[in-house]
């Protein structure tokens, strides 16, 4: 007889679905089937069962081969490289729990590390824009219950956040939106006709890299100003029409993604999108929400925020916290060669950083804490596999709208494996020992 566990939280994307059901074997050790989740989420759960999983830390040898070691030895090595480094980079944090992040921060405080999360190559520009102009926002339940005008700008939930549309934004039936998708007008703005665009009532094909101009034009049109015949490849008639659709709504929500955060204009695109949202509040109700990627990148920003006051790019190397994206951001530090030791937790810069940065990671002592084998583990000197948060250990996570949800444990990790919070706890102990600090 198998058992079905309910109310499980999916540790994949920022949608943080909490209605997953997982069928496990009678002894509770084997995941048999995953229900309600998207294809990516299912794969994440099922992959935990993979027979080729690495279950013990391993050190890279001179000849490039791996040699198995113990968690204790790996913790000693990690503590040593962090303490020896003048400016260690402690990067990632987005696919782990807030508890693990917090332990990592206590290590960083002692070794003078730079704490940065994946926002640095993702929604960091959104965080900078919030610091420029604020952010009128709401929880996803407000979208579900009230929103009748939805814009997806430079994001493709059909592929990146597959259940976003059914749970919150397009098809969900809420209190004041009983007709689901029929009670909403969907607008997709993207240079490419994506699968999400095919679901839209209005698809606006903006010229690549011209989002700022189109957002400005929408603001101008909202104020009744004259426009040139075409802006960013969109006719003025279309722009006025879109503005009428938005003004005619009761509750407008703009979702945006990497298409605007890291294309030409970067944080200024978001400034303008936020300003458009604020302007819309003069006519109706409007909110804007970033489509955050990793399931707990939002949580990393929160924990850094309450402990040090900044959401990413936090440099503790001078004994107090400094924040200056462009100077204290991971890629800038790596490319300038300022970093002499690296700890990567719950993310994969090997896949997502520019090759010049990845080469630097390869050239310095790097410990990668990750349940999986990734391009980052390949360039690290030490790989520490750990239990998977949300599957083999619980912990606090924050959804893209900052709602905190406690993820659950579904099955035990393979025998003898530690969680990342436990491993970081061992590292902290070693660091305390090296620094001569009483616990």
């Amino acid at each position: 007889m198998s058992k079905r566990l309910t109310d499980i939280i999916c540790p994949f994307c920022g949608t943080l679905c909490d209605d997953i059901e997982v069928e496990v074997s009678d002894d509770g050790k084997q995941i048999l089937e995953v229900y309600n989740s998207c294809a990516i989420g299912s794969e994440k759960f099922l992959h935990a069962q993979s027979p080729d999983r690495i279950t013990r830390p391993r050190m890279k040898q001179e000849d490039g081969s791996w040699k198995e070691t113990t968690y204790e030895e790996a913790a000693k090595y990690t503590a040593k490289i962090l303490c020896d480094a003048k400016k260690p980079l402690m990067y990632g944090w987005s696919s782990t729990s807030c508890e693990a992040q917090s332990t990592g921060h206590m290590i960083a405080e002692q070794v003078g590390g730079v704490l940065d999360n994946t926002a640095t190559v993702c929604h960091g520009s959104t965080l900078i824009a919030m610091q420029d102009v604020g952010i009128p926002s709401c929880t996803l339940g407000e979208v579900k219950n009230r929103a009748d005008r939805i814009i997806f700008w430079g994001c493709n939930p059909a592929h990146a956040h597959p259940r976003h549309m059914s749970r919150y934004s397009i098809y969900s039936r809420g209190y004041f939106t009983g007709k689901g998708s029929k009670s909403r007008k969907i607008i997709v703005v993207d240079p490419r006709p994506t699968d999400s665009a095919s679901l839209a009532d209005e698809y606006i094909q903006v010229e690549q890299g011209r989002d700022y101009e189109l957002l400005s034009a929408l603001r101008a049109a909202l104020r009744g100003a004259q426009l040139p015949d075409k802006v960013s490849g969109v006719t003025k008639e279309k722009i006025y029409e879109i503005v009428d659709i938005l003004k005619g709504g009761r509750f407008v929500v703009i979702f945006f993604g990497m298409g605007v955060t890291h294309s030409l204009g970067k944080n200024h695109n978001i400034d303008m999108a936020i300003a458009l949202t604020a302007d819309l509040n003069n006519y109706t109700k409007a909110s804007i929400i970033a489509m955050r990627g990793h399931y707990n990148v939002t949580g990393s920003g929160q924990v850094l925020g309450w402990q040090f006051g900044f959401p990413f790019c936090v440099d503790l190397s001078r004994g107090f916290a400094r924040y200056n994206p462009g100077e204290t951001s991971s890629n800038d530090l790596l490319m300038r060669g300022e970093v002499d030791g690296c700890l990567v937790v719950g993310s994969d810069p090997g896949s997502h950083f520019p090759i010049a940065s990845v080469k630097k990671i390869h050239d310095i002592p790097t410990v990668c804490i990750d349940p999986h084998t990734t391009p980052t583990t390949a360039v690290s000197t030490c790989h520490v596999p750990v239990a998977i948060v949300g599957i083999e250990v619980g912990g606090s996570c924050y959804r893209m709208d900052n709602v905190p949800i406690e993820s659950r444990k579904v099955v035990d990790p393979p025998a003898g494996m530690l969680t990342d919070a436990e491993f970081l706890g061992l590292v902290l102990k070693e660091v305390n020992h090296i620094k001569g600090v009483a616990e």
Partner: protein
Amino acid sequence: MTSILIKNGFVIDPVQGIRGDKMDIAINDGKIVKNLSNPDKTIDASGMVVMAGGVDIHSHVAGAKVNVGRTFRPEDKLQSTYAPYHGIRHMAGGTSVPTVFKTAYMYADMGYTTVIEAAMPPLYARHTHEEMRDTPIIDEAALPMFGNNWFVLDYLKRGEMDNAAAYIAWLLRSTKGYGIKCVNPGGTEAWAWGLNCLSIDDPVPYFDITPRQIVSGLMEVNEYLHLPHSLHLHSNNLGNPGNYTTTLDTLKLSEGIKPNNNFGREQVLHHTHIQFHSYGGTTWADFESKGKEVMDYINSHPAVTCDIGFVTLDETTTMTGDGPFEYHLNKLNHLKWANTDVELECGSGIVPYVYSKDVYVCGVQWSIGLEMALLAKDHMRCYLTTDHPNAGPFWRYPRIMKWLMSEKARNDVLATMKNEDKVRDRSTLGSIDRELTLYEIAQMTRAGPAKALGLGSSVGGLVPGMQADIAVYPYNPETESDPEKIEWAFSHAKYLIKSGEVILNDGEVVSNGNKKTYWVDVKTTPNRQVERDIDQTFVKYYTVNKNNYEVNEHEFMKNPCVVQIDAIQ
């Protein structure tokens, strides 16, 4: 646990009516005791003031909107020194919205040991608790917001008090909350459609209930549940000229309701940051104080308490569950605006603000707070707060004490204002020569708020048997005459003891303490109707499953301290 004897201080304790007598205070096993032989540690407090640890009844120190205030204002970290990591002290930064570590250290420096987080959105309760868990030293509790909650609006509209009570008890348990907070009743729900409720008779869109019904209903439920604290209210129409009539209308709703609890609380309504609600005039041009009118009402109605929300004339970050207010404030100052509407429950907004003493409106706001506190007849019912960080950061409390205790200090500020005459003209502050005593300050900052919170039997005083939260300030009331010394001394407690543990020793933090977190668990009659409503609503309208909603006490709270109440009788 060590035993400690604090010798020879000027002891001030309104709970026992002690007014600066030279006495010894003994501590054993975390509690205050009558006497002690062979103490492990003796503190010589000669020439210094000894008081119970301070109690802050209303402060925004933890949770979702506080953290937005931190992260969206990097400039806030540049306004004061970012204190480096040192020994057991974590690095600590931020000015109007300090990090959790700095919050704790600065409260400790002021001799405060208990702080109430004043607005917890239920859906974000876990976040509030995570921040409180990471805040060392100080004991905390959080008040979840109910004034715009769909369940509450629905039950109260239909007059179903039993159902409202059962739901509120369930939500307090789920969020590990301490009491009933109500912010802009109905107005924040209206704000979800871009609207507001500005008087107590403005109907809430769709729900068709008025703020009057919400406030009355919540007071009734509060007493039905025998909660330690009363309804904690931020009424409608905050911050607008002429709003004092709304405030008086709201306060009058408390008439006829009787306190019903076993915690020594005597009020049925706590109106918070009353300064923001005591404005006359019709526009900002003829803006004036109506502090006297509002305080006259409070003076003559013992079932009402208030905290002031003193404007400190600083650059700060305003943050409140009153979403529409922040939108309008942003229309005034055009700085950045953050807003979060929370599904089915509440909302919030955040806007940086500069209270400049050269802007006459700010000057008048500053006057109103002081005027009201000086006109108060019973400081056991009128408390010192800045609605941190809304009217100013909490670490300005000592400066407010200076203003309250010295007419000269007040006049010095008035004299530097660009619009001094206009400011003097718009309030009665200039004609008040009252100077509060340390005894009254102790009432406003410890004994009073502790009693109003229903914590009066354990904190806020120095009675043997109480929790040993004690502050020693380097201030000699017999010899000191310089008002500046008041501000300095109350910002630099020489010793602080929390639950019998030395936190500050000779002004240095020597321990991160063993903070605890209060919450209230009320037993009510099982109510199938409410259980069904909750189940259905979670399935249909929430985006989080009911089983993932409750805050796990053991994971997210440090030393949870549950107040058990049986409301079935």
